[in-house]
């Protein structure tokens, strides 16, 4: 399964090189400040976990990095150069690929069409050049086999695959097309234990191949399994920012569950 990653991950990636750097980044929707003062570094070969409850600002953060909504404060740098994305295409062109929890694939389309969506192989450069369907089927089939995803037929609609498999196809697709930074939006949220395991293993594999990964989740257990760096968001602000060596799973879990507030509450309710 690492074959795919090793083959297609950019060769110049060195573990620890900063790929994306955010400094004091914020986003306002009119009068509403959805996010403020966020510092985040995504290094090659590391997984940065962004944790937070619903409404904490996780999805706003993703939208900024993936180019859906431009940021309104602070600076975002890719490879040390400031950027201001205005479309997902721009973000993709910088090697940043986002895999959304429920938007990862088009359910009614065939597996191979999904794999190549937006980056189709064509037999020519002219506007209406036909697709090279045989090649795309072949490549998608091989790549999926390499990562151990068993589909009965590469021509079946992707909606017939399990949730974990769909996530993996989406991740594999991003890596195959040369992503250097992977944004995973709640990849395990809707999955069972076994399915989550599949996705987590693949996430770790992507990290080991040298990619920078932003892993967004509200599950500290999943985050701690793969993460190198942890950020907890609450109401649009950063409340925790620590390296793996500085934080324990218990601390993460407590902070996620409410942290200080919970401690005070338990003190008050003490019997």
């Amino acid at each position, binding site marked *: *399964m*690492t*074959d795919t990653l090793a083959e297609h991950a950019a060769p110049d990636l060195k573990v620890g090189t900063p790929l994306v750097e955010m400094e004091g980044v914020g986003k306002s929707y009119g009068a509403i400040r959805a996010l403020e003062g966020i510092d985040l570094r995504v290094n090659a070969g590391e997984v940065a976990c962004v944790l937070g409850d619903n409404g904490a600002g996780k999805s706003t953060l993703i939208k900024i990095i*993936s180019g*859906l909504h431009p940021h309104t404060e602070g600076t975002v740098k890719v490879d040390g150069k400031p950027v201001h994305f205005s479309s*997902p*295409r721009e973000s*993709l062109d910088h090697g940043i690929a*986002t895999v*959304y929890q429920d*938007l*990862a*694939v*088009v*359910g*009614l*389309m065939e597996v191979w*069409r999904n794999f*190549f*969506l*937006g*980056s*189709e192989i*064509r037999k020519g450069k002219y506007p*209406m*050049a*036909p*697709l090279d*369907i045989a090649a795309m089927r072949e490549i998608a089939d091989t790549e999926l*086999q*390499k*990562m*151990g*995803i*068993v*589909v*009965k*037929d590469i*021509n*079946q609609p992707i909606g*017939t695959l399990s949730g974990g498999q769909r996530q993996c196809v989406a991740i594999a*697709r991003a890596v195959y097309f040369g992503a250097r930074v992977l944004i995973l939006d709640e990849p395990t949220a809707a999955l069972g234990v076994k399915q989550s395991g*599949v996705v*987590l*293993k693949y996430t*770790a*594999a992507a990290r*080991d*191949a040298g990619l920078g990964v932003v892993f967004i989740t509200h599950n500290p257990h999943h985050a701690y399994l793969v993460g190198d760096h942890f950020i907890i968001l609450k109401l649009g602000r950063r409340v925790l920012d620590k390296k793996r060596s500085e934080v324990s799973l218990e601390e993460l879990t407590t902070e996620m569950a409410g942290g200080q507030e919970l401690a005070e509450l338990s003190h008050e309710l003490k019997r």
Partner: protein
Amino acid sequence: MSSSVATKPAAPPPAAPPPGRAQRSLFSRVLGRPEVGALAAAIVIFAFFYAVAPPFRTLPALATVLYASSTIGIVAVGVALLMIGGEFDLSAGVAVTTSALAAGMITFQFSLNMWVGVVVSLLIALTIGFVNGWLVMRTGIPSFLITLSTFFILQGVNLGVTKLVTGTVATPNTSALDGFASAKAVFASDIPLGFMTVKVTVLWWLLFVAVGTWLLLRTRTGNWVTASGGNQASARAVGVPVPKVKIGLFMGVAFLAWFLGMHLLFNFSTVQAGLGIGNEFIYIIASVVGGALLTGGYGSAVGSALGAFIFGMTTQGIVYAGWDPNWFRTFLGVMLLLAVMVNLYIKNYAAQRR
């Protein structure tokens, strides 16, 4: 998959032989196509009229049925692709009349060659399609509402402008203008095939269906159309230019509406301003009977052709059968219901087999 990768990525064991991978059988793949239900329904209805209506068995009758199907089917191809792209166009029926009126009036008023009107009305039609698509993408208002507005606007424009320009509500007879004969040959002639004579629209229809099918299944654009309708946010996220795709689809419908408008003009030489209202739903019905999902992301161009064929066969078949005309609409309704039910039955059967 190998479980060692997460911890020891440097030494992946060779992949195990792929378990149980196989192409689905030809039969189950055919059953998985969107148009298979419509095909079954078309065969059932054809057999039905063939049995009950003796005149239906003749070749001239087939030519008439094909002609009736083609005038629905030409626009329905575009409407089907648009619906696969996740949008509706309620202005298509009236846009046909707009194109015909524009071509007729421009050439007559300025005494120009007919082909000038053909080209100018094409530009007008494409502009209408562009505006429809641009408004839908720009405002985010459902296309149902945007094109309903266009439908009303065009209806008024058809009437108002025609009255303003010609003083009546119909275009003058254009058959004496230069270029009429050659344009008629392209848009409204009879083509002898040896064993039967068909209207040229039938051949154009088949061509448009072939192009639509090829576009949808064999080109990148087609991939983007399906993705835009199936999951717009997902398509955007992987870099599909959704607005361009959808505006293009609206322009495609406008192009085909223009084409039918030209047929109208050159077949009858004159066009009344009130025509075409109500046909937009027939195009949508043909697409849906042909397997297009109302919610987008699924359907086929061949299906729209089969839907149009079912509709044309039914409307003419009732006449050939000589049934009591008072019940015409009832028969039509029952036949369409039958077509949709056969369609659904086949699709469910196909889904179970999968």
